[in-house]
């Protein structure tokens, strides 16, 4: 039995890719060492989806994901709790005001629906923002959020419906390459002949690359997140505060469709590695940050916390495309914590790439995110 494509990783990227590949009639096998879909970093994501990036490739992918999510229920008959509540980046200091205003100009030049709001206007968008010292912020009403768990699972079911096979609790231990071409994937349980391997292994992508002798500059960085009890709806957008704080570079939070507040911060300095054990530092750090922005959060009760891995790259951009060193080796890795918001669009693009039918507008994505690029420049705002 051989497969047209073997996808490694049933997460935010591999699962939609499997669906779009299988929908094109390809014989797809997805391998994951975990027991079920989305058990790596997908389930650790809090579900923000935006197109308001500063890199044209990510902008394109973000816009496409939003378009897919907007029609998801209609097209696929599945609920993924997509809520286009927008994104708000707040500014409480001149530094952030300046950064955000510069960014808005750039983003608007790409045609994105984002604008600078003065404090009083921003308070109309988010009445519960702390008005004390608020200078204003950006508002992008077409961004939103969805349930990462439901999205991943929907693609899993859809992919199976198109004939994709999934094998869980199977670890890839080797790859066979002959004459510079992929021949088969070997796991701890079996051998799967294929001419095409898609690495979608998230935080573990570099380990998969090593099996082919390819070094991927992808390294996991650990973030901690939490969720509260559900409360009646009071918050529409995802709120992002990019002020640095003690131990953190930024924080962000939003209210889920089901009423809970999910919150997260980016540790600074980064916590590199795969350790996902809970720390006592997180809650005190994140609580004062997010209450500072929305004081009303103070009385809402925290239910749970967890940690998840961000597969980071040197320039903050993913690696997407064919790897030149090995023919038949495709990667969609280093999503830097944005697998959920870029995964659906990437899945479509990867299918076009495998079929050899890329669209003209795919070129900018493939060029900017090329795994062969030099990693000299960093995105203005990741």
């Amino acid at each position, binding site marked *: 039995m051989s497969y047209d494509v073997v996808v490694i990783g049933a997460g935010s990227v591999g699962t939609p890719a499997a669906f779009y590949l299988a929908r094109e009639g390809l014989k797809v096998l997805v391998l994951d060492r975990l027991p*079920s879909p989305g058990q790596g970093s997908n389930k650790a994501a809090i579900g923000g989806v935006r197109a308001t990036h500063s890199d044209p490739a990510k902008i394109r992918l973000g816009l496409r994901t939003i378009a897919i999510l907007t029609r998801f229920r209609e097209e696929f008959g599945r609920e993924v709790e997509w809520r286009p509540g927008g994104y708000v980046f707040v500014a409480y200091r001149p530094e952030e005001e300046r950064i955000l205003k510069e960014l808005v100009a750039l983003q608007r030049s790409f045609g994105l629906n984002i604008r600078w709001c003065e404090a009083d206007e921003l308070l109309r968008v988010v009445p519960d923002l702390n008005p004390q010292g608020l200078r204003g912020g950006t508002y992008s009403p077409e961004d939103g959020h969805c349930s990462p768990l439901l999205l991943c*699972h929907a693609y899993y079911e859809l992919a199976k419906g198109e004939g994709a096979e999934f094998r869980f609790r199977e670890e890839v231990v080797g790859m066979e390459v002959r004459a510079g071409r992929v021949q088969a994937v070997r796991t701890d349980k079996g051998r799967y002949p294929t001419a095409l391997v898609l690495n979608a292994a998230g935080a573990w992508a570099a380990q998969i690359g090593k099996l082919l002798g390819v070094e991927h500059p992808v390294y996991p960085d650990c973030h901690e997140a939490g969720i509260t009890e559900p409360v009646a709806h009071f918050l529409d957008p995802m709120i992002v505060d990019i002020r640095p704080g003690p131990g953190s570079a930024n924080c962000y939070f939003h209210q889920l469709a089901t009423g809970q507040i999910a919150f997260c911060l980016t540790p600074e300095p980064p916590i590199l590695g795969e350790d996902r*054990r809970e720390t*006592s530092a997180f809650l005190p750090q994140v609580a004062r940050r997010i*209450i500072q922005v929305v004081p009303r959060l*103070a009385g809402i009760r925290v*239910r749970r916390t967890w940690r998840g891995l961000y597969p980071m790259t040197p320039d903050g951009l993913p690696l997407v495309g064919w790897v030149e060193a090995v023919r038949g080796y495709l990667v969609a890795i280093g999503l830097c914590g944005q697998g959920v918001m870029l995964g659906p669009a990437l899945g479509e693009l990867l299918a076009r790439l495998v079929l050899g039918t890329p669209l003209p507008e795919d070129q900018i994505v493939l060029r900017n995110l090329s795994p062969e690029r030099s990693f000299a420049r960093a995105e203005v705002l990741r």
Partner: protein
Amino acid sequence: MSAAGGQRRAVRLDKHPILEVRRADPFAFFFQDEELVAYPGETIASALFAHGIRVFGHHPRDGAPQGIFCANGQCAQCLVLADGRPVKACLTLVRPGMRVAPLDGLPQPPPPPERLDFRAIEELAVEALVIGGGPAGMSAAVELGKLGVKTLLVDDKHRLGGKLLLQTHRFFGSRDAVYAGTRGVAIAERLAAEVHAQRTVEVWLQSPALAVFSDQRVGVLREGRRYVLVRPRVLVVATGARERSLVFPGDTLPGVYGAGAFQTLVNRDLVRAATRLFVVGGGNVGLIAAYHALQAGIEVVGLCEALPECTGYKVHRDKLARLGVPIYTSHTVVAAHGERHVEAITIAQVDEKFRPIPGTEKTFPCDTILIAVGLDPVDEFYRKAREFGIPAFAAGDAQEIAEASAAIFTGRIAGRQAAQALGYAVDIPPEWAKTAEILKSKPGRVHPLPPPPELPLFPVLHCVQEIPCDPCAAVCPLGLIHVDPGDIRRPPRFTGERACSGCGRCVAFCPGLAITLVDFRKDPDHPVVTVPWEFGADSLAPGTEVLVVDREGKVLGAGAVVGLAQVPGADRTLLVRVRVPKGWALQAAGIRLPQGERAPIPPLPLPEADEAIVCRCERVKAREIRALIRQGVRDLNELKAVTRAGMGACGGKTCRNLILRLFREEGVPLEEVTDFVGRPLFLEVPLGAFAGMEEP
């Protein structure tokens, strides 16, 4: 219709045959603008129950009525709005003027605090941290205190004692080792006094532990409002047990409770939480809870047990049977009926695989169903501490489910182990381990009653099953009762070496109420039998005719009360003397007052079994879970992602076992099933607390 629904009765207990009813001056609070009365120290839940209000709100997902379930802060089914904020009614004390409202749907987020006053989170280094102030935790803290170890004991309740505070019965076990023969509530007081006498032991009440972190700190919410990070060198985890549950249609109706929840309302808060009760489960917890209900004046319609015999101590079973409670073995619950509250239960006989046999259903009207089908250790902190390299010792039910007497002992051992880990030179006597094992042992073989001695006055020891217990031997002033001191599980024996004085101490102090005195001296043809009685002196005036029953509850006939007595120090156990015909003397083991039989009513139609709720927090039905299992799902985390089962307030603590049971029923070996990932927090706490705000 008001959220309260149904009929409302004032149901505070005014008196109790064992517990002293003491209430300070009442005050007013409000439920839905109606002025109600509460007493200091009552939780919102108890104050509402005291007015017959048992529906506290409705679930946001499907509008199902919600009320008390665990009464232990572990689930969130009792959420109400108190002065506009959602709180757990079972943990929150009611205050004068408090405005309580039912929680229908999701609560509004509380208003913002007036000031953002963030304080640094205090860190506190201690030598030993003991989590849990029940029998095990208090015993561990006492051992640590005796050695001068700087110890912090934290407990989530308002008083030390843990579940001992709910135990109105006398304890089994060894009188020397663990206060056997004393009531649980009294043991709690003694142990608490010992804890408070330790100079180096600090106690924080209303201070739940929230999480054990990988950086070896333990988050504690001090006195319910100040978040503190405790850095212990060793940890003793004495967090007790949580109650197992069952899946059946109607399983989340208000009126279906864990036995512990019920004991909390009745024995701690002195509220008559039911009128007519059915108990599911014939282990010690179910048997004792049924007995406690009777003491609180609640009618016990019946008790069912899925196994062919009750698994609790036979003396507990027999006590109930003697009081006329029907016990249905090889039966299980198949449905709770009622629209907004329990109105009836249907039980059915089960086959050898514990499946209900159609056609054997029996329906009984009742307003409350207690689920007492076993306990599981609350061992999350212990497992995390081990994972994170903190030297940790578990004690009591957190280590292994057993009697509270065993918990006292394993607590002592854990306390000494913790001291040793800290480098203190202290021994653990080798016989402690043996005693702990004996105290943990399950009931054993049943022996025949030995032949009676040829004496005019002697005790009959109806204690025929092997259980760890020895107070009878210890209290006999003449040393005429023998229990093997090397193994107190052996049934006691009356030696008959000398004449019994008839003092009645063995009758009064036997925790199983399994000893009688037979006295032929006055009238050899009509001996007087002395039996223990824990229901007060009312309606037992001399001359009263009572039913005399044998050990297992069979009615022998009528007998007349000839007198009542009390043994000094016997803490409200009465001795009732009854004159009986000679032939009953050895069989007579108890009395009961004549009462009507409660026969089942015609069976009610059974709802679809798979409509039963498995995850009560997120209202996930058995049908949804089974469908996914049949589709091949083998990961609880995937089930959670798809159905939300386990995502609710309790964090899967209640539904995990129930889901695993469904896997077994579907023929899936549990080795194939991946468990939930355990995550902090143990309890939900306002975000503001973590920002160093007090009362956010």
